[in-house]
């Protein structure tokens, strides 16, 4: 971990773009300060020796949890239910932005 990260205004705008978020001028300045503050705090992890330690993804030890073949699906939505919460639909389909 690098010592004292300083996020620039460009970093903030880049992150916002990656996350598909629009920020106001004011938010850019606030987040630049607050995110840098947070990254400063978490540097305390560098004080610990983590060599050869296995990372924990989940605190449960469950492995390979799958449905058996042929399990009846009890939670399927009807087309109407699946479309109930959308604002834009056409001929029983979701309307999405053009991507090509």
């Amino acid at each position, binding site marked *: 971990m690098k010592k004292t990260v300083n996020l620039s205004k460009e970093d903030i705008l880049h992150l916002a773009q990656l996350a598909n*978020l629009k*920020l106001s001028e004011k938010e850019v300045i606030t987040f630049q300060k607050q995110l840098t503050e947070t990254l400063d705090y978490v540097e305390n*992890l560098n004080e610990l020796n983590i060599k050869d*330690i296995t*990372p*924990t993804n989940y*605190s*449960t030890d469950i492995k390979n949890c799958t449905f058996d073949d042929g399990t009846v699906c009890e939670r399927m939505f009807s087309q109407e239910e699946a479309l109930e919460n*959308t604002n834009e639909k056409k001929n029983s389909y979701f309307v999405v932005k053009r991507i090509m």
Partner: protein
Amino acid sequence: MNLLGKSLTQLQSLLKSKEVTPSELTSYFTERSKRYNKDLNAYLTFADKEVSSSRGELAGIPLSIKDNFCTKGVKTTAASKVLENFIPPYDATVVTNLKNAGVSFFGKTNMDAWAHGSSTETSDFGPAKNPWSIERTPGGSSGGSASAVSAYLSPASIGSETAGSIRQPASWCGVIGLKPSYGRVSRYGVVAMGSSLDCPGPITSTVEDAALLLKIIAGKDKYDATTADIPVVDYQSFLQKKNTYTIGITDEYFVGVNNEVKQKVMESISVFERIGHKVKKIKLMAPKYAVSVYTIIQRAEVSSNLGRYTGIRFGKDRSFFGGEAKKRIMLGTYSLSHGYYDAYYKTAQKVRTLIIEDFKRVFNEVDVILSPTTPGTALRLGEFAKYPFFGEVMDILNEPAAVAGIPAISVPCGLDSQGLPVGLQIMGKYFDEKSVLNLAYQFEKETNFFDVIKNGFQNYH
């Protein structure tokens, strides 16, 4: 009949002996909730048409539930404008289990938007207030639930924790909050925040009620692959056992804790000694490391989980996210991005292993660990902004248990000189909710929580 302050188990008997009917109960709580909601803003939605079943252990009992649990046909917003009009087409497993036990849900409680926060102030629908002093926050993120139980607007409520969101508001509102082990209660149908941490749990006015609700909501769920196939104990019967425990206390959990809170917790520790338990000094990793681990992992999981809110299938588009959600999404995006993944996310996961091992080591010596729930009592509305991370430090003593996935309860242990409730935290071994509850129950029998809960109800008689 004066129903004020009756616990779930008392209401069960009153229903059984037909001294009160299910519809009377529902009207009682709905009316009280609507009357006091102008002051407390504890509820976001009332489900007026919901009726309880006449069958099941909790037949006829009305409950409230945090607004991040999907309730079929009843608006579920997670206190965010993004989901302002979202009507789930299915129930969360916790909701299904309680409905099968006869419960009806009359209200959805206020919370921090997406459960991001520790004060309910990030709610897009205005903050909930603390019944002990309405200029103060009830804590959060399950602040609406804690506020409602504290003012007896709901006989109990279901909240959820990622790190502190049940225990901290329970502590500040002077009620009981139980965070079960991760994997004990299904997350299916809960608006996801930090998927490796999220954990539903009860907020109640007696330990027995917490035990009763846990038994109903706990267990393996085929729709949540992280729920463990470990048998559910009859927690309620287990309360009657007069077990003696070795209780661990550690100086690390008293650093930065205000003196009045410290004093109340020390007095409680002497109560445990007096009733025959053994208190032992232990050493644990400083909670500040858990804060860092939690901050990195939770932000990363948030950025991934909130990616689904595109405004296409449901909800509104991403321009409706509030500041806190945006900030967390961006930090998560940063720590998961190319070149930073190892430095942040992987490091945090490794330290998470250290924290888990640290608890395992200590639990070879002691049965439970006791500490304050929070470093101070309820803050004034707006006061959180003065602290870094918008008050993440208020959850500092809750985050180690969350990161390790172990169970913990907060119970009231007195009032400070401003008349605000102080919370005592009991942490237990992984999947040993029964010991945590048993010890909390013994404390309740011995002290009645110094009448904190009872006096809280009197504020809203």
